[in-house]
């Protein structure tokens, strides 16, 4: 894993000098310096014996699902508006973590969303997308 990361570093470092050629010296100078340093660091990381990986047990699947849910949330955030998309996101993720809750899931989601809307939308005046519900 470490090795893969270091390789990615190398590639990044390799790409950047090429970038520097097409650019005036000014803006490229500092990135080139960084790329060189990063290349060096990656080299050190490759040469060094890798540290023992932390033993992990847990639920990687959950993590992946949440990542997916977040992606969905982002896509729907403006389209459906803050209220609808947040209720959807919260209920699906709460349902995922606390399977036994049933009817309490949407309740929590709706209460939380309203609280957030009240606090940020109205009290602090941060504009949140209204989306489908529109007409705010």
């Amino acid at each position, binding site marked *: 894993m470490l090795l893969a990361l270091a390789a990615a570093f190398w590639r990044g470092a390799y790409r950047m000098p090429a970038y520097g050629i097409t650019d005036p010296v000014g803006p490229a100078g500092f990135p080139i310096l960084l790329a060189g340093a990063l290349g060096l660091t990656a080299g050190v990381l490759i040469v*060094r014996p890798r540290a023992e990986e932390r033993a992990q047990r*847990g639920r990687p699947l959950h*993590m992946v699902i*949440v*990542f997916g849910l977040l992606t969905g949330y982002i896509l729907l*955030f403006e389209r459906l508006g803050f209220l609808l998309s947040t209720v959807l996101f919260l209920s699906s993720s709460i349902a995922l973590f606390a399977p036994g809750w049933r009817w309490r899931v949407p309740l929590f989601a709706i209460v939380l969303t309203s609280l957030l809307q009240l606090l940020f939308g109205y009290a602090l*005046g*941060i504009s949140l997308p209204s989306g489908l519900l529109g007409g705010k």
Partner: protein
Amino acid sequence: METLDHLLYGLTIVLEPANLGFLLLGTVLGTLVGVLPGIGPQGAIALLLPLTYGMHPASTLIFLAGLYNGAMYGGSTTSILLNVPGESASVITCLDGYEMTRQGRAGPALVIAAVGSFIAGTLAVGGLTLIGPSLASIALRFGPAEYFSLMLLGLATTAGMVGRSVAKSAAAALLGLMFATVGVDMSSGVPRYSLGLPALLDGIDFLVLTLGLFAVSEVLVSLEEARILTQGRVRVGRLWLSLRDFLASLGAILRGGVIGFVIGVLPGAGPIIASFLSYSVEKQLSRHPERFGKGEIRGVAAPESANNAAATGALVPLLALGIPGSGTAALMLGALLMAGVRPGPLLFAQHPDVAWGLIASLYLGNLMLLALNIPLVGVFIRILHVPLAVMLPAILALSFIGVYSVNRSVFDLGLMLIFGGLGYYLRKHDYPLASLVLAFVLGGLMEQNFRRALMISGGDYTIFVRSGLSAAMLAASVAFLVLPFLVKRLRSLKPREEGQA
């Protein structure tokens, strides 16, 4: 005498009812969010930053000072009650703190943490008051070359002290510097690394990066590791501290305060090192070292005092030089920049209301923290019982609001998710996020000074070593990066023992 006048001036600013309200709000919110499981002080500050939009800079600062104090303190509560350190600087508090809880002495442990933080914090603010302005006046003579070297030194010491591997810290810092170069180059107008995306031309927003790295990735990690807290009732015992306990701890608190402040002022991982060091000092000074780790009250008092003092100490370079001394201080710097205040030597001269208002609010904030924490411990414990199933999604929704509020841009949300993924990966592989954020915040300034220095010298790189100060700082930077490596080589025979950083 002049200092005292300034301080009084600062106090009059903080004592305005509105500002006092902000300080209280910041302290309470900071502590609450700091107590939340699965989110440390850095995440807490990042989550609450959007609240500062539209505030007057001085009020923002005062609010932030409360937030900072509160969040740093909040971490210790979970260490003591649940054996879950809210942040790495509280790791060592778990040893004796949780042990005290198991012995039914959670009350005294929490009180001594609050009292110790208060005394040491106040001491440290005193130090800040004395040192800050004079450091600032020295820094006024700095040229671009000195500044560049100083920032490099800050990054190098951080890399040398945080985390397990210097190379990894350095890599994280370099990543941060690279993220800082994204966007249109200030002096030439050339877009850099924007990948052809117009949304990236303005660069990566500070909030997007920090919320992704801290809030989102923390949630992801706690989900994956199924870090569900054991939700047994916590018995606190009486919230009371006997005079004997207090006197026994007083020495530890004072020593912790001094150690913490001195280490905090040095750039790098102040609070963590300070808490570990003060703990081992106490253990060595104690006539009963065997009691440490078995519920010794000094084992709570020392590190808690030290990490609080160090948190304040870290503000010295932030205010006087514009260079944060720790990851959390880097967040403060980001917040100040968002509020349109650039900390640095000129701050004391140009915005005395901001600088002294902040210092005065730290004094008052410590007092508030003490007054609030003891009666509110019951509330904090109840918060710990909020199920993670509700907490984690709520944290995510909060980060969405925070990021969206910056530019009203869905693109930023996506970017935050990407940083969340990156943060997750980096956490899993022990790359210190603090280095990355510190570098990201400093990146722009560092490049500016680097280029300005070379402009002055006409492209001659020896400008960085021509002044003794700059050369010394560069040499120290190199030493910080290389020394740990050599030390490790020498010690390679015996396995290193160290805590999680």
